[in-house]
């Protein structure tokens, strides 16, 4: 992006430094708006539609199907509705903090899009500290949620905010440890570097590379679910206990910002997991040169959306775990496993030469194991579907 602007300005013959800086600033603002309006907001909106539809089908319901074909424009209707609602700030609430909180949460999510690569060349900024930047920026969400809980002047919101603070801060650690294992294997913090270190075939992905990285994938996924307050870790917004937790008092567009941030965060953690563990945009070399960029983007988005599907699936299947059980899970289980993974990966990187017999055999063995588990799972799903397929229609009026 910067090179593009550079070339453009030199073409126009601009030499004055101040004007350069101003135009750079304006250009970046423009790009940011484009990214925001044309990519993040529709992505979050579409994820919301995706979730409602999948949740409904899992619950024997239909889901949104009126607005647009198959309800595909439902998210636009929801967004417009939120924009038109009254902007309500509770009387005794701290108005400045109340207004700032959704922006902080939104920024915590938006900042991560800078380093997410969609294809070999399509990345906003390939920072050398990519993964570190990701973890730092997502920590803003915790700050935003605490401020939201406190400024609402509502004890239930405060409880939600406190729970969320404890949860996010605790689960930063196992997720960081898992990503560190990946970084150690790839030798670089840059996101593009991590993807280039993997291959296109499933057994060349990071997740199947060593048993430690295999475990790291699950540790990262669980910790990331806790980071974005999704079930089974959605205590901060536990509907049945805290009404809506930290966003009880929010309405209209401020509420929409929280939820946009949540759905876009689903995409972010799926994208990070795809990048770190599932090979990112890598595609088979038989794809012709001309189509490579597009197919790479499609591969990345497809893998991310598969993981988003898993996130949604988990949310609508599992109950919620309690605050103390969640803390126990983090500190007594995930953190030790994360450390073991880290040490194991260090040992592996130091002693096992890459791309030779032992490494390749391990990858293929893990891949076959995972395929076997998936096949067994599909067999059980088929069994369950057949066991309850009796369709009985008892309504005398239909």
């Amino acid at each position, binding site marked *: 992006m910067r090179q593009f602007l550079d070339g453009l300005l030199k073409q126009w013959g601009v030499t004055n430094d101040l004007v350069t800086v101003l135009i750079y600033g304006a250009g970046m603002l423009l790009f940011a708006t484009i990214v925001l309006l044309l990519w993040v907001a529709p992505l979050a909106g579409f994820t919301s539609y995706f979730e409602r539809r999948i949740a409904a089908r899992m619950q024997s319901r239909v889901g949104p199907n009126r607005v647009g074909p198959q309800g595909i424009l439902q998210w636009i209707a929801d967004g417009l509705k939120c924009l038109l609602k009254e902007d309500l700030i509770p009387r005794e609430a701290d108005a400045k903090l109340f207004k700032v909180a959704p922006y902080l949460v939104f920024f915590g999510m938006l900042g991560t899009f800078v380093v997410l690569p969609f294809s070999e060349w399509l990345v906003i900024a390939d920072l050398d500290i990519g993964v570190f930047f990701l973890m730092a920026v997502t920590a803003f969400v915790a700050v935003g949620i605490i401020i939201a809980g406190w400024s609402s002047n509502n004890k239930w919101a405060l*409880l939600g905010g406190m*729970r969320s603070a404890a949860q996010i801060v605790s689960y930063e650690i196992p997720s960081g440890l898992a990503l560190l294992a990946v970084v150690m294997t790839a030798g670089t913090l840059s996101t593009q570097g991590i993807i280039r270190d993997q291959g296109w075939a499933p057994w060349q992905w990071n997740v199947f590379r060593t048993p430690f990285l295999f475990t790291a994938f699950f540790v990262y996924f669980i910790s990331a679910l806790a980071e974005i307050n999704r079930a089974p870790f959605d*205590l901060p917004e536990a509907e049945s206990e805290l009404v809506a937790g930290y966003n009880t008092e929010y309405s209209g567009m401020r509420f929409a910002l929280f939820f946009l941030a949540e759905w876009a965060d689903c995409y972010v953690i799926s994208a990070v997991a795809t990048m770190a563990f599932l090979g990112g945009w890598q595609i088979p070399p038989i794809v012709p040169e001309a189509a490579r960029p597009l197919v790479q983007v499609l591969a990345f988005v497809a893998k991310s959306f598969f993981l988003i599907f898993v996130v949604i699936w988990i949310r609508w299947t599992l109950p*919620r775990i309690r*605050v103390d059980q969640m803390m126990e899970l983090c500190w007594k289980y995930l953190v030790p496993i994360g450390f073991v993974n880290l040490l194991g990966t260090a040992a592996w990187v130091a002693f096992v030469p890459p791309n030779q017999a032992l490494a390749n055999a391990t990858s293929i063995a893990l891949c076959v194991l995972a395929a076997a588990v998936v096949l067994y799972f599909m067999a059980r799903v088929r069994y369950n579907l057949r066991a309850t397929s009796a369709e*009985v229609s008892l309504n005398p009026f239909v």
Partner: protein
Amino acid sequence: MATLQTQEMELNMGPHHPSTHGVIRFILKTDGEIIAECKPDVGYLHRSIEKIGELCTYNGFMPYTDRIDYVAAMSANFVWALAVEKLGGYEVTRRAELLRVITNELGRISSHLVAVGTMAMDIGAVTPFPYALRERERVNDLLEEICGARLTFNYHRIGGVGWDMTPGWDKKVLAFCDSFEKILEEFDRLITGNHIFIERLAKVCVVSAEDAVDWCFTGPNLRASGVDWDLRRDEPYSIYKDVKFAVPLGTGVVGVVGDSYNRFVVRVQEMGEAAKIARQCVQMLPETDGQNPVPKPKTLKPAKGECYVRTEAPRGEMGIYVVSDGSDKAWRVKARTGSFCAMGAVEALSPGLMLADLVALIASFDVVAPEIDR
């Protein structure tokens, strides 16, 4: 080091709350997440049903009994009909008794579906609730065909039932019972065996057998604490002595006897037993063909006296105490409901619980506001 000044937080789990079952208010004093005191404040749904009983004729009061517990309306109908019949010595044909019991058991299935569905939803698993409601819709279809209503049935009458069954209804009930047993297995696979669910409920709010009896628990709450008492088997009324069914007891599976998980599992198992009872009664129906289950409409004037009749409703023991002064309206009607007594135990059981556990406790007692407040 100076001691840290902490304050107990006073929270209002107000009448509007997604997880209190109905309009019930709790005034909580908490130390962060741990509850120090929880006072229930009931009465938000008080509708003076008992006073209305003094202003209505005996037959005219039947729709009001639906509203005593609108989730399990058939049981309330049943106990009012039994109470006035005992008071006045009115006879009921066997066909009417069979139809009453079939609809009562279908109502029990419907009520327990709501109970376990909302319990799962309060713990966070939203999916079992629509599954339970889907089955409840089938029960509602059956009951709609026989009496025209889907929630407040007004089906039983003093001396019988309101309408005879439509032809083919009994086959539909059998078809439902067969498919329902498979659905129960699916429900078990979805939520009853779920590890997170068990972690949330096992060993939470244990009520020992002695405590359960002391607090006047009845119904599934009592049986989950290990006390083997079911009015349908121990003080049989109507035709319950002619049907065979098991009474599920809390066995402390994966937890302790009397914990919230037991209260959940007992309700799930009771649904299976209710389907069995309904099936047996439907198979007994053909031998009563030709009997008229609908009583002749007339103004009832039972002799002066009083009587108390109790039955096994899905939420515990529902009893009606009715006093007659010889006229066509009752002199006093009192309804004893299971939820009211369960509510009394919440204050004593709550200190030391976390907020999430309080929600699990209220859900596992299966209290509904209309029963508490009447």
